[in-house]
Structure formats: C-alpha cells, structure tokens
C-alpha cells in the first residue's frame, strides 16, 4: 500500500463489522428563540418552518456519509431550545408545541426530537410549570418528541418543589401509556446539571447559550473496548486503562471525522463530539460486559463501581485528544434496558437500584431506563430523583433519572420495547416512604465548593 498499514485497515473494518462500532447519532441543535411569538399558533408555524428548513438535508447527509465512509450512523436527531422559553412568551396550550415538533420531526425524517424541556433548578418562571404539567399528554400524543426537566444544579441547589412534581409527572406518563409499555416515561429525563449540547436522547435540548444551529455527534463502541480487553486476560489494571484510552481515541476520531464532514456538507458549525460508550441491546455491545471483562463475575458485584470509574475516566482521557471540541455528557452510559449485560444482571438480582445509584456517582449519566413496579408511589419516585440529583449536585456532574413505573407489573416481569430501547426487567424498589420529606417543598441550598471531603 502507498501510505496505509494493512493491519490498521483490517482493524477498522473489524471494529465496524464484528464489534458494533457505530456513530450513535448526528444531532442538529436548532435555536427556536427567534420563533417566539405572543400568538401560540404563529409560534408553532414558525417552529415547524425553521426546523424543516434547517434540518431538510440532515437525514440524507447522514445516510451519504454512512455509505461513503462505511460507518453506520444509527440515528439522525434534532434538539431544540427548551420549549418552556417559548411558552413563556405565548402562553396557551403547550401540547400545541409538541404537535408542531412532531410534525417537523416526521417531515424531515428525524428519529427523535428533544427539547420539550424546562430548566427549573432555582424556581418556576412563566411557562415552566404549565409545560411540565403538559408533559404526560405531550409524550402520549407524539412519537418522536422527547422531554427533559432540569431540577437541580451545583450552583443553584435542588428545587424540591420540582422534584415532588416530577415524581407525579413520571407516574402520569406511565399511566397514560400503560397499554404501550408505559413508553411516555421512557421519553422523559429528569436532570441535575443538565448540559446544553447533549446529542443523546431523551435528554437532548439546545441550550440558550448555543449558536443558532450546530452539529453535535455522539459515538458508541462498548463492543470495541470489550474486544480490546479480551485480548489481554492477564494484564494489570494500568495496562487495562491504557488499552481503554487507546481504543477510545480511535472511536472518537471517527466521531470527529463524521462531525466535521456533516458540518461541512450541511454548512452548519460543528459543535461537539460526545465521548460516550453508549451500549445497545445487541450481544457484544454492552458496557456491563466491558466491566465483566475486567474481572467481575457479573455487573453489580463488589468492584463494579471501581471498574466503571476506571472505564469512564479512561474513555475521557483517550477521547479528549481525538476531538477538537468535546462536550455533551461524555462518559460510559449504563441504561439498563439498552444493555444486554445489564439486563442479565438485573434479572439475576446481582444488579440492584442501590448499586446502580452508586455507579452513577462515577459515570455518565444516571439511573437510566430502569423499570420499577407499577405501584411505586410518586413520592418514592421523587425520593429517587432527589437522591440522584444530590449525587450530581455535590459532585459537580450531570446526573439524571429516566425511570419507568411499569403499570400493572411486578418484579420478575419486564417491559419490551425492541430496537435501541431494548427490554427492561422490573427491578424491586425500597418503598419505605419519603412522603413527608418530599411534601416539604422548598430548595436544597447549593453545596459548598471547598472543604471537599
């Protein structure tokens, strides 16, 4: 060959063909601030028109890049300005916005559209509470729209009124779609320290500090990391960390290439690459299996948090040099229903919600795609949200809760989504009541950022 190494070429092809290396998403972030109007119908029309205009070629461009570079690009998505900001100007029925977003997503062929969101970490502004209360209806009447609510941050503390409300909203989402595997709850994320440039669903939105339109890319590749580790069964942990870094670098370079190319072809600025190990339910594409490859009998065993901390840190160290702009959530994801190894571990009882909570202290992002018994009370859901937000707030990191009360189901059963969402075994929950704590309302003050012990 003239200037390429045969082994390198075969390695790349093997990663794609055998180890599930893919670009998880190209997400176009679109600001809708210039669509705000005091008339909600006019605002909806403007939103539709702008999204369709900006994202007209998004799907086609993604498909072209996929064919030419030979790398699968699984999703083409859109994130928009939190809709609560537009609702503040227009008032009216927020679900009209959800329908306009759905129409636009369908028109351009996007897989998901995120941004039916409100940021209420310090309190509710005009539009925020109305939007939050409309989430169950909005996610029931749409298929592509995703919603998120930021209820806390390291700088603002935790809005406990919002925490209490979100427990109820999650239950309502599940109840309204009980005949469809409670799917509405799977499209809703509750955040602490939400990021403004996240390309991943369901938590993507286009922050107010972002440019008018940007391209963000999220990569994947747990299968590639696992294969790299499988080749070194007797290596010590220093070498394991090195191997993860080296692999993450290669994965991220592909993300950077696709992001740059999509940005050039669409004539939209490149935003960030999200350095993520995002699993899929396919065998061989599991973060849990990476942890098990490090030497755990099963994910959830003692040592799991330490293995995940190593993995998460090494992914960032390897990835950060491979991209000119890193952002989003960046880290290993542990969505239970979307990860074959996590599903097995949850079914066997080795992986519990409490262990997952500990794991979220060291990884991106939080309690993700977890199904709990259908009779779990709203205040217990709020308690789980508060715990998870506290971990994020104190550790200055993003944490999130995407939890699904499986209406009418108990541990031992499961929710079956198919596709990327996989299947969620119902996990038992500690139902001792936090009702009084949740009902108090108010705010948890922002934590001290010194005296760190």
């Amino acid at each position, binding site marked *: *060959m*003239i*200037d*390429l*190494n*045969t082994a*390198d*070429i*075969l*390695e*790349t*092809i093997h990663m794609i063909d055998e180890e599930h290396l893919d670009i998880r998403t190209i997400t176009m972030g679109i600001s809708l601030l210039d669509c705000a109007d005091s008339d909600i119908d006019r605002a909806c029309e403007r939103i539709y028109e702008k999204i369709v205009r900006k994202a007209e070629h998004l799907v086609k461009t993604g498909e*072209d890049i996929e*064919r*030419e*570079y*030979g*790398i699968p690009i699984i999703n083409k998505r859109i994130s928009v300005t939190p809709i609560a900001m537009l609702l503040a100007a227009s008032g009216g029925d927020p679900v009209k916005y959800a329908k306009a977003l759905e129409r636009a997503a369908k028109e351009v062929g996007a897989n998901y559209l995120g941004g039916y969101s409100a940021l209420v970490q310090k309190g509710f502004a005009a539009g925020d509470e109305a939007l939050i209360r409309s989430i169950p209806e909005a996610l029931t009447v749409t298929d592509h729209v995703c919603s998120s609510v930021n209820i806390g941050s390291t700088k603002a503390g935790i809005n406990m009124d919002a925490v209490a409300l979100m427990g109820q909203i999650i239950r309502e989402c599940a109840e309204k779609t009980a005949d469809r595997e409670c799917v509405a709850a799977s499209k809703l994320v509750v955040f602490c320290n939400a990021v403004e440039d996240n390309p991943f669903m369901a938590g993507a939105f286009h922050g107010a500090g972002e440019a008018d339109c940007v391209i963000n890319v999220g990569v994947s590749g747990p299968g590639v990391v696992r294969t790299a580790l499988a080749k070194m069964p007797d290596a010590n942990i220093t070498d394991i960390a090195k191997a993860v870094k080296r692999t993450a670098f*290669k994965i991220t*370079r*592909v993300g*950077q*290439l696709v992001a740059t190319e999509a940005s050039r072809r669409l004539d939209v600025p490149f935003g960030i690459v999200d350095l993520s190990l995002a699993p899929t339910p396919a065998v061989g594409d599991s973060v849990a299996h990476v942890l098990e490859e490090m030497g755990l009998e099963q994910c959830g065993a003692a040592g799991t948090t330490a293995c995940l901390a190593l993995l998460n840190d090494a992914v960032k160290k390897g990835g950060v*040099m491979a991209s000119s702009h890193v952002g989003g959530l960046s880290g290993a994801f542990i969505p239970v229903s979307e990860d074959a190894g996590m599903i097995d571990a949850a079914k066997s009882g080795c992986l519990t919600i409490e262990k997952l909570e500990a794991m979220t202290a060291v990884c991106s992002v939080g309690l993700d795609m977890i199904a709990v018994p259908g009779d779990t009370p709203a205040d217990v859901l709020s308690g789980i949200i508060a715990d998870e937000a506290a971990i994020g707030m104190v550790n200055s990191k993003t944490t999130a809760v995407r939890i699904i009360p499986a209406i009418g189901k108990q541990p031992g059963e499961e929710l079956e989504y198919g596709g990327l969402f996989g299947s969620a075994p119902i996990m038992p929950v500690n139902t001792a009541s936090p009702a009084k704590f949740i009902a108090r309302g108010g705010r948890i003050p922002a934590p001290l950022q010194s005296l760190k012990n």
Partner: protein
Amino acid sequence: MRAVITVVGKDTVGIFAKVSTFCAERNVNILGVSQTILEDMFCMMMQVSMDDCDIPFGEFADAIKSYGLENDLVIHAMHEDIFNSMHRI
C-alpha cells in the same frame, strides 16, 4: 478523493483480475495494492482514486459490495479518511 477497497475471500484464480476489471469499467484508478494469502484466504487492500469515477462513490461502494457477495468475497470500499483519522494523530 481516495478510497480503500479491501477484498477478503477463499483464494481462487482471478480475484485480482475481477476486482481490478470492476474498477476499470467504472473509471476507478488503482494507486496501490497490497495482497497476501493468510491460511488459504485471499486478502487484498487497494488504494484507488475516485476522481474520475463514472458514478457517485456511495453507489460504487454498494455496487462493489454486491459484486463481492456474488463472487463469495467480502469487499468493502470506504473513504480513505476514516483510516487516516483513526490511525494517525
């Protein structure tokens, strides 16, 4: 633009001829070739120029892949940049 074509399959007479003819018929210029036999498996990498190709690269990649399947070969045609970016700093 440059692309890399990889061909893997059981070694038989004429694989190189078939693939290079396929390229020539579409005006794809071969710049470099590396080929080896690994345990009865024919394994070839070609670096090609797509500048004068008669059809868009995406179409060419799909066509050569199908051509490979018809001939019991696994053929990939991919933009060279994916290898450059993954393995070069």
